Every structure is written in C-alpha cells, then in structure tokens.
C-alpha cells in the first residue's frame, strides 16, 4: 500500500513538474490565487504537515492521507480549492516543536489543531480560522467531580491538560482550581493519568473530549464545556512567517467557510458538540 502511494507520488511529481513547465512558458505574470502554480516547496505539489500520531476525530487511523477525519478532509478541501487534486497532496510528519521552530518549514502548511493567538502570530503565519473550538472537561464516573455543575464545584480538583494546548490556559485562566494543574506531553499520557485517578479531570478541546470520553475511557463522561466568546479560539493552518502562500491559503479557507464546506465537514466528522452543558 505504502509502495503504491510512493509510486503515485512520483508520478504526480513528474506530471506536476511537466504541467508547471507548460504553465511557466504560457503565463509570465503569475497570479497566486488558484491553480497548481503556487510557489510551494515542490512545484506542483502541495506539502501538508501534521503530527504523528494524528489523533481521532481530526484524523482517522493515524493516516492523514486517507481524507478521513475533519482535518484531513479540510486539508484536501483547501488543496482542491487551490487547484491541487488529492494526488498532488503530499503529507509530511511535523511535531509541534518543528511547527513552531524559527525559519523555513518542511511543509507548505500544517494542520494540527493549532489555536490562533496574536502572540503566536509573531512567530508564524496563520490562515484564517477553519474551526471555532471550545474547551471541555472530561472525567470518569468514579471521580469526585463527576457531578460538578459549575466552575465553583471544581475548586478542589486536580486537573490536567497537554502541553502546547489552549486547554492549559483554560485551567489557569477560567477554572482556576486551587491545586496546580498537571501538564502532559500527549493526550494519551494524560488519559492514562485520568484512568489511574492521578488527576480528577482532563481539559481537552470539545471534539477530542467527546472522542476520548467515548472511546478511550471505560466510564468516561463530559462534565461540561467552557463557552468562549464566539470566534475567540479558532484553529488555523500554520505557515512559515511571511510565507507567500498565506494570502492564497486564507482565501481558500474563507471560500470554504462561505460556501458551507467547513460546516458540512464538521458535521460529518465531529460529534454533535451541542450536547455538552456549558459550565459557568
């Protein structure tokens, strides 16, 4: 399977470079809006980065190239909008630290649940947001916060989040429990700590919270979500600071939002998140 994919990519590269050669001779003034003549890393190919493992429900089976899962679907939709069919999309692995490192990146854009903040925007470029995210608290039915109804009920809870997430900021900025939060490298380790009872609850983005509560925990439940102001926490595609692609890619995301594609993909791949009560 992998070999086939490799062959497909090679063919795509050759086809891509050929078509670029033709395009270059015919059009001198290049407009960077659509079509595979964007100044990407490899001409004719759109290179997209994401972390390994890529988590459900954002991806499926840790395979970003299958078009399944919300972010994989969004990535292919953006590619199509830019004029790159699925065969001309190449995926590369990019851990969080390589995404935020200074200098040139190994991808044209990265899609990996990265929240847009003004401070981060000083170091990297973001596309416009492709998903409005809310944070949610999950726990197990045995936990002392299983029946919490408000933020005040969480005052004595030991809560966890994974590093690099805005979930941590939700604990320190919104919930403000007395105990110091625990911070983990990945959601997997954090989930294990929750199963062990080493933390009382785990803060995750809402779609991940639904997935973890249902699939990774035996008796998991969602305590509630924390309502952000509309549009205050959005996931964006990450690009090299000052990338010449940012405008085109933002335009593609805007177009997908305007024609309802983003909403439809969210409805298809992410759980109906309206069911979680809002904690105040």
């Amino acid at each position, binding site marked *: 399977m992998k070999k086939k994919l490799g062959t497909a990519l090679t063919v795509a590269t050759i086809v891509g470079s050929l078509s670029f050669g033709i395009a270059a001779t015919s059009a001198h003034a290049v407009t960077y809006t659509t079509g595979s003549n964007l100044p990407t890393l490899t001409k004719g190919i759109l290179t997209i980065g994401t972390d390994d493992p890529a988590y459900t429900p954002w991806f499926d089976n840790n395979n970003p190239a299958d078009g399944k899962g919300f972010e994989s679907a969004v990535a292919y939709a953006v590619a199509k909008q830019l004029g790159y069919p699925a065969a001309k999309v190449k995926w590369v692995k990019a851990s969080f630290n390589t995404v*935020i490192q200074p200098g040139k990146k190994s991808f044209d854009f990265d899609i990996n649940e990265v929240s847009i903040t003004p401070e*981060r925007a000083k170091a990297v470029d973001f596309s416009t947001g492709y998903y409005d995210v809310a944070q949610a608290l999950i726990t197990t039915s045995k936990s002392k916060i299983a029946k919490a109804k408000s933020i005040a009920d969480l005052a004595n809870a030991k809560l*966890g989040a994974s*590093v690099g997430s805005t979930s941590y*900021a939700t604990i320190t900025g919104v919930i403000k429990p007395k105990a110091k939060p*625990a*911070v983990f490298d990945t959601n997997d*380790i954090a989930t294990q*700590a929750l199963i*062990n009872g080493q933390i009382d609850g785990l803060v995750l983005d809402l779609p991940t919270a639904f997935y973890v509560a249902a699939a990774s925990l035996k008796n998991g439940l969602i305590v509630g979500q924390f309502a952000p102001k509309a549009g205050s926490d959005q996931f964006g595609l990450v690009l090299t600071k000052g990338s010449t692609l940012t405008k085109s890619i933002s335009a593609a995301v805007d177009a997908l939002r305007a024609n309802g594609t983003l909403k439809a993909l969210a409805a298809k791949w992410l759980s109906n998140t309206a069911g979680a009560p809002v904690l105040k």
Partner: protein
Amino acid sequence: MTYQPSPLRLQREASRRRVSRQSTLVALLSTVIIASVLVIVVTGAPGFKLVRQSFFSWHYALSAFPHVLSGLWLNLRVMIIAEIFVLILGLLIALARTSHSPILYPIRLMATIYTDIFRGLPLLLVLFLVGLGVPGLQISWITNSAVVLGTTSLVLTYSAYVAEVIRAGIEAVNPAQRMAGRALGLTQSQTQRYVILPQALRKVAPPLLNDLVSLQKDSGLISVLGAIDAIRSAGIETAQSFNFTPYVVAGALFVALTIPLTRFTDWLTRKQDRARVQQGQW
C-alpha cells in the same frame, strides 16, 4: 652575605619569562582569531536574526523567568531528596555485591540482577512503569503523586549507577588493608566501616559527584508524569508564544545549579592529588 643568583640562573629565568610571555601572546592571538571566526560565522548566518529572536529574546526571557524559577524549585527538592536516597541505596547495593559470605549469596545475586536491569532500562521507561503503571494497580495505600513516583524512578535508576561506582571504589582498595584491619583486632564490619569504606569513597568521589550532576539534570524528566518542573514551565511558555527563549532561561538556571557541584568536584580531586603527592603515594 646575601644570596646572589648565578648569571646562569638569571639567564635561565629570563629565558623562561620570555617563553611564557610568548605562549601567553600566542594563546591570546589564537583565542581572538577563533572567537572572531565563530562570531562571524554565527552572526553572518542568514537565519541569525531569526534564531536570536526566537531563542534569545529579552522580552520572553523576563516574562518566563518567574515561571521557570518556580519550576526549578521542584527540581531542587526532587534532586536533593533523590540524591540522599541514591547514596544510601547505592552504598547498600555495593556492599551487597562485594560481600563474600556464602550465606549472603542470594542477596549478592539480587544486587547483581538489580544493577544489570536498572542500568540497562531507559529512565523514561522506568518513569512510565512506576509513574503510570503503579498507580494503575489501584492499591489504596500507594501514593499516586507524580512527584513522589517520579523521584522513586530516579532513585531506582541512579542507585544502580552509583552502586557500581562505589563497588569499583571498594574493589580498588588493596586487600592487604582488610587483612591489616583484621590483624589489628577489628571485626569484619569495623574493618569495612573504618578502613575500607573511607578509602573507597575517597577514591570514587569525582565519578560519584559526576553521577549526581547527571541526576540533577534528569530530575526534569519527571515532568512526563505531569509535574511542572523548570523545563515543563519553559515548554508551557514556549507553547503560548512560539518562542524558545524560556528553554534557554531554564538551561541557564540548570547550568548555574550544576556549576557549584562541578567546581566542588574539581576542588576535591585536586585536594586529594596534593595529599597523595605529599604522602609519597605517587
């Protein structure tokens, strides 16, 4: 009559001064040249401005400092507690491994297996097994605190190293010392306590302190269990700003923490060397 140095001696001293001046000059020159080349290569690199911004930004250093410092307080507590337990446990294992009595064979065997396993296991795996596996057993009287379990993992791993260092020290003491101790009427354990161990520990003090310095740095690894130490605090700050300066701040604090211990090791080694030269052991 006052002492008059001979002309030959004066000539020799003048020549020595000249050579020493020359070597100082050469050392200075080569340092300046190498330093300038380094500075030119690094600052002239196309990405230098970007790297300086993302690794050496005053703004982020100042804003991260209090968080990193409060994380370092955890490192300090963990390393001190761990060092105490590592030295005790390491000594006990070393004594077990160097024992000779046939009755103690099972203990000797256990000590050997212990050092074999824990020197070979990556610390990260020990941390996961102890820090996430043990609480998973849901035994009510065992704590599930990340800090306590993390420190336990450090003690388990580092005791194996330290035990081997101490064992090397014990075996480096001449066997005649033990016989001499016994001949003086000391019991087996008195000989161990007053004759063998003082000499053994003195011999291995530098490598022992080396292991402790290494332990200081590895104390940060307990953050994989959720505890927020200096490195994890830096990671949290970095994730918010996408700027790596907080890590550099944490690094500088770690260096500041280990330098006193390394200088102490150097000082101890020099002192021992001098003592040995005076005793005519060399």
